[in-house]
């Protein structure tokens, strides 16, 4: 792992991405102190351009866009991380079961996975949020539900590939139990791929969340970048700043996560080590 970190640090772009993510995390921690009134507070006149008092201007209701960007960062990270985590756990369980048990279990689980993969992810997420009625939890559930199949297929593939290797056969021959095989030998050996793909999932989860909020399917009590853009869209021609800054925040965050994900992939993937 230490060697992996060193390799990661050699990747300038990945480091840059990590720095941006750190800044975003710092922003979410500092938001309550920087903007004690909260992102929904009507703090000034409507549609004020960026100024010393309102760094990023105000929106159509007189809310501080900067406060919205800061609080939206928390929402995006919270939902992005939770949904990615949920997808990784769910995907690993299903993919692991399929890859370890093989046979009928494998066939059934993989057909279910393919079923989910063939449904357009965004439409399914929208449908789930509408059925569950919009809230932070329902958005996390919906994004998890559409994000796990990729992880499941990856883990299954790794398990199948590792399952035929000598060290696995040897420990099975020495009488190692199923859980021991899975948790001590199989899972640790595919952890690096899971981390790399899982980190990229955070980025797609943030984009999904933003899209849902843009369509009015986010939690109406929580500020988010998608909600800001959706609210600012009607006044785009009169007030560019309402949509622009949350848009830049989305761009930077998602790009950084992708860079970090690529960096992790390179650093942890044994096949790319020699590059």
């Amino acid at each position: 792992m230490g060697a992996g970190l060193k390799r990661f640090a050699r990747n300038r772009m990945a480091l840059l991405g990590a720095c941006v993510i750190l800044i975003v995390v710092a922003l979410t921690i500092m938001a309550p102190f920087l903007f004690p009134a909260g992102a929904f507070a009507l703090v000034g006149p409507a549609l004020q351009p960026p100024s010393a008092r309102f760094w990023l201007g105000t929106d159509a209701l007189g809310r501080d866009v900067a406060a919205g960007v800061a609080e939206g960062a928390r929402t995006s990270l919270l939902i992005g991380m939770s949904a990615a985590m949920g997808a990784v756990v769910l995907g690993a369980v299903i993919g692991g079961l399929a890859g370890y048990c093989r046979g009928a279990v494998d066939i059934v689980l993989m057909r279910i996975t393919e079923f989910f993969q063939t449904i357009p992810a965004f439409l399914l997420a929208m449908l789930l949020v509408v059925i569950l009625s919009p809230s932070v939890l329902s958005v996390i559930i919906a994004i998890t539900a559409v994000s796990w199949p990729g992880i499941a297929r990856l883990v299954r593939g790794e398990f199948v590939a590792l399952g035929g290797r000598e060290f696995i056969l040897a420990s099975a021959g020495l009488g190692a139990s199923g859980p021991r095989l899975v948790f001590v030998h199989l899972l640790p050996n595919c952890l690096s791929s899971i981390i790399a793909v899982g980190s990229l999932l955070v980025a797609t989860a943030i984009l999904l969340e933003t899209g849902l909020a843009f369509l009015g399917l986010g939690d109406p009590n929580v500020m988010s970048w998608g909600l800001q853009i959706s609210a600012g869209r009607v006044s785009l021609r009169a007030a560019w700043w309402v949509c622009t800054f949350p848009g830049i925040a989305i761009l930077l965050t998602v790009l950084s996560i992708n860079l970090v994900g690529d960096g992790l992939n390179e650093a942890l993937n044994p096949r790319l080590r020699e590059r």
Partner: protein
Amino acid sequence: MTESMRPSRRALLSSAVLATVGPAQAQAPARAPVRGGTMVMIVNPEPSTLATYAVSAGNIPPVTTQIYEGLLTYDWEIRPQPMLAKSWTVSEDGKTITFQLQEGVTFHNGQPFTSADVQYSFMEIAKKVNPNGPVILAELQSVDTPDPMTAVFNLANPAPYLMVSLSANNIPIVCKSVFEGTQPLQNPSANRPVGTGPFKFGEWNRGQFIRLDRNERYWKPGLPLLNRIIARFIPDAATRSAALETGEAHYAAYSAVNAADIRRMQANPILGSTTQGYGTTAATSVLEFNMRRPNLAKKEVRQAICYAIDRQFIVDNILHGFGKPATGPLSSVFTTQGFYTDQVRRFDVPDRLEIANRLMDEAGFPRGANGVRMSLFLEINSFGEQWLRQGEYLKQALGQIGINLTLRSEDTATWLRRCYTDYDFDINEPFYSAGADPVVGVHRHYVSSAIRRGTTFVNNKDYRSPDVDRLMDAATREIVPARRAELYHEAQRIMVEDSPGAWLCEVQYVTIFNKKLQNHTNRPLGTYSAFDRAWLER
């Protein structure tokens, strides 16, 4: 008192003068009207059906009032004017109305128009399938046809609201021979309407447009002036605005143009705008309080919420300035009929927040450690984004008096079921059209007989006031306008005092039109009446 309403030449003249001084006509030059041309109007969204006699959706009449006509139309004071009825008399007891019909009128299929069509349109169509029929025609018992040009309406009780509800958008006159012996909703003419109006149905290219052609045999001599009307359907708001700005479309009413775009359009030299033509369809945004909830059963809490809201803020920032603060359950459009009063408890006083906080204290809800007195849910209206913005504002406004408001946004079906069937809501934020008369659009939200589980947009508040019930019941039958106005003034004072809801804003619709299009808005019904006199400059 036999009130003869045969319009004299002087009355016609004065209404013509009135029409010419209306702001919409101010820029109309004295040039002579030109015949011909195709007017393109934007209708949004596309109607799902043209069966205006059975479906009350607001996007149908802009098309169907070109084709169907009513017995009456209205002047700027909402006084009845002749249409298919050329004159009428109301008996002294208000229970018999005799209409003399226009002669020489034919339907688009060539059938002559007679009193039998009137009888059929009211008794067989409007009373049975029109969603407003049970209210508007509740007292109508029969229509007699002593001769082909006379129709006599027999009422069980006087119905003063009936005479303001007889235009084409309320009760269209259909051709008896087209409908007789068929199911009205499955009738082939549902989507190929046959009427007596200035334009005939041409074709409906779904998703694109409806074409209406000039009725060459129209009964008003020399009219209509336009050759054709195209009703275009453009789903995207920015594209609709662009169609007007490029001159591709001539006319867009209601909310077809985004409020945020209207200022820009008003600065465009080829476009004009008017706020006229919404005299009978004024809409008010309101809050409904579920008085079954112990917190909201307390009058002080409801009043405190009313005080906490800055209505002008909503007008300025959410309606983009197109509206005005509401004062009570009756819209100020009823000023012309004398029903409206603002002599009620006013919530827009300078010390409104102090009053609100004091009322909350008096109601027994002191602020807790975190400054919160109580938590309530607001059900977000699912008909568009502006309601989410309003909800976001209300959360802040109610926060000032210690109410922690949680917004809940659900899909339309779930929202309606929660608020009108399950009654599982605290505060709801709907939007109501007042109708041409309070009986049509206002009563059902407040009288206790309208507490009907499962019926949408009626009294879901559980508001039961014997006084309001009595006053509204009396106003339904009172035929002397001044006495009727007194009843409504008293009812408004009681309702505002009780605050079963909060009345937020009267929405001001804006019509955007190309300046080449002349004489398009000459009645309070606006786009709910025919463009028979409209013409296009070359």
